[in-house]
Every structure is written in C-alpha cells, then in structure tokens.
C-alpha cells in the first residue's frame, strides 16, 4: 500500500487534518440527527419535541471527542470519529423508531433509545479516558499478562452462579442490580492487547522454527501450545456459554494476529483445521448449533424454528433497493430488531442503498485500522491495530452475515448500531485505542538524521 511510504523517514509527514475531521463530524451529525428527525416526522407527523435536546446532546458528545482528540491525539486519523458518530447516530435513530413502534402497540413496552444514549455517553467517557490516560500505547505492552488475566476473568464472570445470567439461551451476561452487561465485549479488547504483547515477545520462535510440507511452513509441535490453549478457550466459550459468535470471533482474532505476527500461512491452515474440527464436533454434539445450521441452509424447512431469520430476510426483501423509508416499515415484526437484528431493520427502512452505505462505513473503519497498522512504527502497535481492525471486520461479518443469511446466525451485536451497552462501550474504547495508535503512527518522526539510533525505523522496514 502506498501509505507505507508515509512512514519512510525521508517521506512526507502526515498533516493533522483536524479541520477535515470537524467537517466530516458535522456531516455525521446531520445524518444522525436528521434520521432522528425523519423518524419523528414519519411516525408522529411533527419534529420530535426533544429534537434539540437530543441533537444537542449528541453534538455535544461528538464535539467533546473532537476536542479531546485535538488536545491529546492531534495527529490521529481524521476519518474514524466521524464514521463512528454517523453509525452511532443512525443506530440511535433506528432504536428510537423501534421504541415508538413498540409503544404504539403496547404503552408499557420497554424502550431502549434513552438507555442507549446513556451507554453512548459512557462509551464516549471511556473513549476520552483511553486517549487521556494512555498517552503512549506501547506502555500497554508492559501489562500484557494483566490484560490476559483480565480477559480470562471477564470471560468467566457470566459462569459465576449469582452474577451470571442466561438470556435467550446464551450465558454471556452478568447482572449487577438493574444493569446487565456482556463482559465478553470488553474481554475482546483485552485479548487483542494480550495477544499483541505475547506475540511480540514470542514471535521469533513461532515464526522461524518448523518444517515444510506441501509448500507451506508448518510450526513445530511444541510451539502449538498457545494456539491449543486459545482453541480450548474458544471451545469452552462455545460449550459453557453457548455463544457461537464470540467463540468464532475470539479464535479468528487469535489466528489472524498469529499469522500477521509470524507471516506464516501454516498457522492459518493449522488453526483453520482446528476450528473446523471443533465446530463440527459442536455441530454433532449440540442441538442448538444444528438448529442454527439447519435454519441457515433452509429457513423454510418447518422442522427448524427459523422464525427469526425468516422475518429478517422478509424485512430486508421488503426494503428492496431504496427501502420503505424511516418509520414506514414493520421492523417490529423482526424479533430483536433493536439489537441483534438491527441490520435487518435498517435494510427494511433504508433499503439496499442504506445497507451498502453502512457496510462501506464499516469497511472504512477496518481500512483505517489496517492503514494505521501499516503506518505504525512499532511491532506492538501494529499488532494491536491489526487485531482491533480484524476484530471489527470479523464481528461485522459474523453478525451481518448471519442476519443476511450468508452464514449461520450467531448472536453478536452490530458495532455502534445495535442496542447493547457493553458492546457500545467496548467499541468506543476500540476506536479510542486505534486513534491513539494512529496518532502515534502519523506523528512526524523525530529528526532521525541526527540520531545515531535508528532501530525503530528498521522494525518498520521489516513490516
């Protein structure tokens, strides 16, 4: 990629482009607040009464982020924040729209938009905290095993008797008073940091030793330890928490980071085979996995309860090319249209056009993340950025692919769009970390010609 030239010591320096960010942010706010207003116009016939309060709050949060970036990460990527703001705003408008539809049917129905706005505020808080507290992402490397332990604890929390709760068949929640939370979402971020730190330390052994077979370098048996452990952990997630999506996400994430760190496709082959084996065992062993696969292959087969996926694809088909328009569809027919299936609800009301726009936005986030990894000058930052971007890509693929019947349905949240506090907060943290790394990567390098020590740049040249 041409951007790798940007990190070349004699190349150009990145401009800060904070003005561009502000401009894009305004556009995003127009999208988010505009969608909210359109919902009000369409359903109630007037602009929502709280439009200014709501719009002001959303704008305030975004401006806060922008200001924090200006102060604490002036060279950070200018595109990420506006994309996230647009997605988050759109998600809020859609959740609000579904709330209104639910209220129309039942005055005591649960509403989610208000909570989501609160969670977004918390997310922005965490985002700010990440940027303010973590001044240099390389410091995190020192806490590699702390993060690993934290991830493990977070993953195990839902299995604890009092704290953990089972919702809709998956035991991935903890409940504290009125709040329920999916610790797995946070664990995801911790895992990325842990993997990155671990792999930076051990990658030489993992990368170099091994034997060649069929044109691919396969790792040595004794180096298989970490991948085996990770495999067991994700299987455990699958077995004990009955959460296929997270299981796939964790293992996929680990595999990709291993591959990036070592540049050995052999790991992908070994890992892919292990996952396929594990998934097949899971398929044979668990009825709910079979049901998922069955309703994926033929949703209209009456022997599987495929109500969710059928409603989802009906909704999207009903949306067609340009959609029904916000407030004009029937997203309440789709179960969980405010959370897991929000993508189907968006497909119904915004149509293929809107869906493509959303997917492109997600794609841009991933692209920006990977670009950050390319530009980044230290191996740890590269791995963290890659890991975060790939987590994002995998998660979007798994959930959107599930909702659109590309792959079997699994329960994962749609980043920034669907209702769910843990996911929102965690994803804001991911963006915070990415911005932190990109700020570091894009910052003009110190004047290296005067420095006798140019080791950092050599690392970059090795990619």
């Amino acid at each position, binding site marked *: 990629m041409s951007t790798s030239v940007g990190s070349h010591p004699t190349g150009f320096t990145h401009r800060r482009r904070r003005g561009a960010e502000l401009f894009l942010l305004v556009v995003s706010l127009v999208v988010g607040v505009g969608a909210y207003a359109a919902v009000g116009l369409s359903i109630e016939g007037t602009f929502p009464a709280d439009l200014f309060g709501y719009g002001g709050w959303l704008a305030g949060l975004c401006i806060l982020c922008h200001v924090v970036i200006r102060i604490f990460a002036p060279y950070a990527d200018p595109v990420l924040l506006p994309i996230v703001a647009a997605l988050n705003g759109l998600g809020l408008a859609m959740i609000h729209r579904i709330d209104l539809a639910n209220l129309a049917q039942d005055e005591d129905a649960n509403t989610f938009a208000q909570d989501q706005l609160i969670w977004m505020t918390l997310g922005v808080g965490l985002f700010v905290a990440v940027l303010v507290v973590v001044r240099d992402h390389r410091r995190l490397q020192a806490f590699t095993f702390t993060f690993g332990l934290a991830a493990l604890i977070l993953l195990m929390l839902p299995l604890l008797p009092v704290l953990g709760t089972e919702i809709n068949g998956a035991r991935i929640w903890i409940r504290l008073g009125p709040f329920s939370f999916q610790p797995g979402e946070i664990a995801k971020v911790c895992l990325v940091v842990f993997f990155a730190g671990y792999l930076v330390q051990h990658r030489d052994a993992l990368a170099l030793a091994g034997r060649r077979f069929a044109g691919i370098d396969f790792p040595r048996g004794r180096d298989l330890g970490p991948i085996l452990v990770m495999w067991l952990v994700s299987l455990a997630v699958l077995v004990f928490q009955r959460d296929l999506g997270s299981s796939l996400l964790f293992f996929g994430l680990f595999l990709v980071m291993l591959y990036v760190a070592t540049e050995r496709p052999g790991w992908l082959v070994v890992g892919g085979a292990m996952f396929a084996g594990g998934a097949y065992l899971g398929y044979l062993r668990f009825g709910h996995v079979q049901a998922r696969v069955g309703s994926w292959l033929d949703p209209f087969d009456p022997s599987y309860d495929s109500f969710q996926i059928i409603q989802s694809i*009906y909704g999207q088909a009903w949306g067609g090319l340009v959609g029904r328009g916000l407030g004009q569809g029937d997203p309440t027919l789709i179960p969980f249209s405010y959370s897991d299936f929000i993508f189907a609800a968006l497909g119904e009301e915004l149509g293929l056009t809107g869906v*493509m726009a959303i*997917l492109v936005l997600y794609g841009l986030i991933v692209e920006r993340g990977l670009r950050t990894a390319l530009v980044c000058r230290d191996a740890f930052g590269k791995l963290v950025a890659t890991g975060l971007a790939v987590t994002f890509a995998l998660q979007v693929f798994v959930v959107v692919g599930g909702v659109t019947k590309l792959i079997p349905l699994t329960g994962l949240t749609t980043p920034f769009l669907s209702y769910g506090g843990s996911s929102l907060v965690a994803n804001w943290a991911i963006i915070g970390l990415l911005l932190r790394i990109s700020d570091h990567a894009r910052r003009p390098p110190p004047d290296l010609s005067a420095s006798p020590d140019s080791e950092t740049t050599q690392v970059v040249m090795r990619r």
Partner: protein
Amino acid sequence: MAIACMALFVALLVNSTYLQFVRSDDLNSRNGNKRVRDAEFSRERGDISVAGNAIAVSEEVDDEFEYQRTYPQPAKYAHLSGFYSYTFGQSAVELTENQILSGSDPRLFVNRVVDLVGNVQPKGGSVALTIDPQAQTEAFEGLRALDENITGAVVALDPTTGGILAMVSAPTYNPNALASHRISEEVDSWDRLNADPDRPLLNRGIQEIYPPGSTFKLVTAAAALSSGDYQPDSLVPGGVAFDLPLTETDLVNSQGRSCGGDRITLTRALTVSCNVSFGFLGLELGADALREQAEKFGFGEEYLDDLNGQVPSVFPETPDEPQTAFSAIGQFEVAATPLQMAMVTAGIANGGTVMRPYVIDEVRSPDFEVLDKTSPEPYRSEAVSSAVAQDLTEMMIEVVEVGSATTAQIPGVQVAGKTGTAQSAEERPPYAWFVSFAPADDPQVAVAVLIEDAGVDRNAISGSGLAAPIAKRVMEAVISQ
C-alpha cells in the same frame, strides 16, 4: 490481510444485493409474509370482471385495512375469482393474478412511481375474464336445477380460441366469508369448508379427475380413424358381448343389449355408444396408440396457467389386454378433468387443433389502460387431421340426431355430442357425462358436463338424461348472442 477483510465485506455487499434485490420478489411473494400481506390488504385491490361487470371488488371500509374485498356473485363465480383471505392466502385468479391485482406487478412500475411521487396509495390493476356471463349462469343454474346438493362441474370453451366461456363447480362456497376481516369468521368458514365431505373449495372442473366413460370413445375413435385402417363406415363387431382375452369375463354393452348386429359401422358404434365395438378397437389399436392419441389432446399435462391446481388427466401406463379394452371405453384407470374432455371436444370442433385454454382475457392498469391481452395460441396444432376431425364431427352429429343424446338437440342448430356414463365403484353412483359443441359447421362453443352425484336413483343416471340438457342450455346461451 487487507484483502481478506475486503473479501469479507465484498461478500456481505454481494449477499445484501442478492437478498434485497435479486431475491426480494421471490421472498415478497411467499405466503405467510405478513409485511407484504398487510401492505396488500391496505391497498385498493383491482377488480376481477366478467363482460364489464365486477365479480370481485375492493370496497372502502372503516377498519385497519381500509379496503374490504367483496364478491357480488359469490356462489356463481367462487371457483373463478377464488378468495382473498388474510389468513389463508388466495386461490384461483386472486392467486394467479395477485401481482396485478395488488399493484406489485412490474408492468405497473410506472404507476407506482407516479403514485409515490404524488404521495397516493398505489392501486391495483384489474383483470377481465373470458367468461360469458350467460353461459356461466346457465351452467350454474342448470346444475342447481337437478338438485340442491348436486356435485359436478361444467366447463365451456370457445373452440377457436381456447378461451373459457363457463366454468362451474358444485358445490360452491362463499368467498366473502373467507375474505372477512374478522379473523374468527374467516377461520370458522375455512374450517367448515375443509371439513365438508363434498369439498366445496375444490374446483371440479380442473382439480379432480374422473373416469370419462363413453366420452372417451371420441379419443378411441380418433385413434382408429387416424390409424388409416378405419373409416366411419368401416365395419366393427357390434354384438351383445365381447370375449376378453386372458379372462373369464366378457365386455358387455350397457343394459346387455346388442348394438344392432354382429357387424356395424363405426359411426353406428359411436351413435349407440357400443362398448363391444370400442373394446375391440382398443385391442386392435393397442394401448400405446390410445395413449398417444389421448396425449395429443392434452392428457398427462398441465396447460392451464390462469387458475391454480389444474391436475393432468391420466391414461394408464401399462394396461394388459382386458385393461386396454376397458380403457378404450373410458373405464379402468383412465381419468380426466372436465376441462380435458372439453378440450377433446373443442379440438374436434376446431378442425383438429386444440387451443391452449385460458381464462384471463385482459389485464389492465388502474387507469384502465390495457397492459396485456391474451392472444390465443394452438396447444396441439394437429391432435387429429382436419379430415379425421370432420369425420368425428359427422359421427357426433349422428349421436345427437338419432343416437344416445337426442336431449341435446337445439332447434335450428346442428349439435355434435357424445354421452358417457362411467362406473367407478359399486358403492357410489356412476358419473354422468356429456360433451358437445355447436353449431357443428361453425363451432362457437364446446362444453363438457360432469354430474358426480345428483342424488337421483341409480337407474336414472345417464349422460343424456342428466348432463346433456345442461350442455344444451350453455350452448344455447352462447349461440343466441
């Protein structure tokens, strides 16, 4: 890695396109898709009309769906219009032309865009049927005149076009009850109709096959004449009984009479509907020749697209010799829909060319602009040669003038016809058939009448007694116009 990620996103984009664009029509037309159904229900659905009068209309009502589907002449047209039910979907023309009626047809795309821009609820297009209202009325009343609880069917075709002029199935039902917006009423009605042993929802004209009995002798005669070995005046056996090979049983004529001599002409055999002669012919020609001839008329195939559920008529796969003899007189496992027998008759009337049957004449946009008009097309261009068709016509004229079907005579008009009385099982009454067309020299209508059960005494059941008078009424209704 970047490429792998891109591949993931491209896969998502492509799949969304597939789902929301390529497959959307398919998904939107599935029964049970509540979204589509609700939207359709709240839309002004187009009329189904017969000769300018609507037999199904949408009326504005004050409930959540805004429009109520109503059928002004429910009993007479139930099996043609079909029903339009919230819970149970649609049937007949309501089903097959649903896209036009609901306004979602691609041909109405421009209308939808205009409505969208003008912010008007889109309306559905309308459908005009080929039905002749007088013929339909005569068929309906004719069946009812025999018995209140009659089961049977009448199908009339325009032999030159294949357009369906009348199609009545008894018993009938009230589609208004199934279209009710009160779900309980709808469900009750549905349950009652489905529990009824007479199966009122069944369109006996196309959805059920019956042994055609002696009306099938037309097919056997057509095969004989087409073989080149027989002429109308060729002599065939006509005695009291015909010794079947391989069995102890004989094939006998109805009521055990002789057909008028040991050797009679083919014309005579058809005129008196001689089982012995046609059993003999069946054996001489062989099952394959009979089947081939039957298939030329449309046996074994589905050809009616305008109404759902047409079942193919059947000629047995591998009958042995006695079975072939019985098949030749329309017994054993030969079974046909009334529409199929009407097509045999229409094919003979039309000089040997069987036209493809249809019931949708025109499809119009909400502003009455004609979107599509069905142009008649031959279904079998030479089921029989025109010479054979001419011979058969003359033989069928004899049947009506001096033979078994004098009850179908119309003063001043030459009628060609054939009766049939088919045994099926000991415990149920025989089926009475009559097929005919008129005027013989310039056919305007071909009709098939089937009486399944008219509640009359077993001995009183005959094609000429029960079915022919109804066919006569239908033919008169068409010709008199």
